[in-house]
């Protein structure tokens, strides 16, 4: 039993990392039906930027700076990669554009910070603590807490603030929102900014556990993408559940079946969800009228 709990605990920690990144996919998809395929690079840039700032301002003060950095980064991605494609109603232009921007970001990061994996200073003790029969790192608790807090903050922003309400309106029906006088263009930019901001924050959050480097986001972003599909691209709750499912599935398979097949059940789940419920476990089925 203790082992099972330990596996669950580790799976939850890993799963929350995926969820935090997948959350960013969901934000932009809601407003513009587009995704930033450079999400992994936004995560890496956020972490590397944070790593550079830590010696100057300390760990906690670095976080708001990273948030500002991510916010600006998202706006840049939207301007350069997404807006031109959306404007000419290109169905696929944004895919290539965001991937291309991601590659550019990675190369820039490699030139500035090198390609070595760097150690990110941990703000908390690196000694594991006992929590109900399992051992967890304080940093893992911080990841779970931080990710939940971040998602909560975005939810509150969406529900309470006028800008957030505009975001929700745009996601519900972009044409109606436009007719109601909402500048949907601006709202899409905003959603990209918030999305990259969450990615950059997630980067700082996970960096002490995953190591920091220009390519740190590549594997994580791919898994997060699977999470977003499993959970449903329209649902904030969906990505949390999807993340937990994938993370726990990985550690359980690793232990009970084989570590060589660790990544397989997640992908099988992805295929199953796509064939049975293409909108994801928590997605809303939308009937597209043609």
């Amino acid at each position, binding site marked *: 039993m203790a*082992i099972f709990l*330990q*596996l669950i605990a*580790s799976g939850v*920690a*890993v799963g929350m*990392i995926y969820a935090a990144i997948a959350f960013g996919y969901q934000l932009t998809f809601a407003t513009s039906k587009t995704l930033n395929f450079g999400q992994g690079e936004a995560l890496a840039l956020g972490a590397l930027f944070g790593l550079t700032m830590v010696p100057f301002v300390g760990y906690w003060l670095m976080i708001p700076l990273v948030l500002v950095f991510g916010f600006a980064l998202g706006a840049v991605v939207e301007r350069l990669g997404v807006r031109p494609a959306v404007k000419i109603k290109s169905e696929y232009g944004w895919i290539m554009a965001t991937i291309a921007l991601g590659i550019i970001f990675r190369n820039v990061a*490699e030139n500035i910070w*090198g*390609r*070595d*994996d*760097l*150690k990110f200073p941990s703000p908390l003790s*690196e*000694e*594991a603590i006992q929590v109900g029969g399992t*051992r*967890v*790192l304080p940093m893992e608790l911080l990841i779970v807490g931080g990710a939940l807090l971040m998602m909560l903050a975005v939810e509150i922003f969406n529900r309470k603030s006028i800008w957030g309400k505009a975001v929700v309106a745009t996601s519900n029906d972009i044409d109606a929102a436009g007719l109601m006088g909402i500048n949907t263009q601006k709202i899409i930019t905003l959603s990209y900014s918030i999305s990259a901001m969450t990615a950059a924050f997630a980067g700082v959050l*996970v960096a002490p*556990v*995953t*190591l920091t480097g220009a*390519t*740190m986001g*590549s*594997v994580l972003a791919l898994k997060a993408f699977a999470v977003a599909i499993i959970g449903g691209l329209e649902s904030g709750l969906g990505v949390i559940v999807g993340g937990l499912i994938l993370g726990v599935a*990985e*550690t*359980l*398979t*690793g*232990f009970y079946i*084989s*570590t*060589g097949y*660790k*990544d397989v059940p997640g992908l099988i789940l992805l295929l199953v969800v796509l064939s049975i419920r293409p909108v994801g476990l928590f997605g809303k089925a939308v009937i597209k009228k043609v």
Partner: protein
Amino acid sequence: MTVSRRALMGALACATALGLTPAQAADPIKIGVTGPYTGGSSAMGVSMRDAARLAAAEINKGGGVLGRPLLLVERDDEAKNEVGAQVAQELINKEKVVATIGFINTGVALAAQRFYQEAEIPVFNNVATGTIITNQFKEPDYEANYVFRNSAYDVLQAGMMVDEAVSQGFKKIALLADSTNYGQLGREDIEKYLATKGIKPVTVEKFNIKDVDMTAQLLKAQQAGADVILAYGIGPELAQIANGMAKLGWKVPMITSWPSSMQSFLDIAGANGNGVTMPQTFIEDRTLPKRKNFLENYYKTYGVTKIPTPVAGAQGYDSVFLLAAAIKQAGSTDGPKIRAALENLNERVEGVVTTYEKPFSAKDHNAITRNMVVFGKVQDGKIVYAKEEDAKNAGVVRVKEKSAN
């Protein structure tokens, strides 16, 4: 038409003249240096390259080889197989190197060295450890093998790791290896060697490059009652294993392949890495004058207090001297002649890993034998001798065993 014909004649004349003129005394001897200078294994590549530079500078200071200076042509293979193959072709066809040293990654070596074999240019593996590397073009399928090596190959390391575990009285061995060529070939070597001893590992687990969480692998080892972990992988992931053990509050000795001496392991594992042991051909100590000079020169030239990956640096340094001795003996820069000289090297080459006496023969292209390799141990961010007797005998040069291979 007349003009173009005249131009053609002129060009021809020039070309003939150039071709017939014997190489000038100052013409440098070009030696390719290939390795990852960026990316995850860059600490090894950079240590190797920087040490090779020191060796070349020393040789040039003493008048070079055959009265000509050595010129290192450095190329970054990024630890990628396809880039390594490109680099090999560029070095051979465009730069016209006399020989090449380098290769950190087994996969890159296997993908790239065929070009040297075809061009009959010696290629000198100074870090990559895959056992198959020196066997890729072995007799009787090939007339001559142009691949040489002065690193401790996997079979040798695997045997050492197992023997070390057994000699310390451990019975239940858990085997963890990464999913790359390197890790899986090493795992195979370990399993084979364990089988000859009639031991079956209690568990064999796999992990991927960039894996964040080792809980499943370690819990399996713990449940199987493992009393020692043998791990085959590179720095960052080996460090994640050490960190994972600390997280689970489970501590058994960990014996790894040599890359736990990488800087990335020391940085990432921190205090959790203390006590991890691994086979090393070189430990940073200043016992012998040659080693002392090398280390001081390295520290001073590059402004560091520690070689990022000492083993890669030492082997890279020695490889240049071995090659220089062979070119000297061959009396030419002709590939087959250099190969023949390497296979029957008359000069005693004093390196920092060992003193090389007849390091290679026509059949044996590995300079390092088991007796030259010691166990290193991580201690507060440095690699020290794991055993007292090794530390005491640090100044004794271990030469190649006669019966080897």
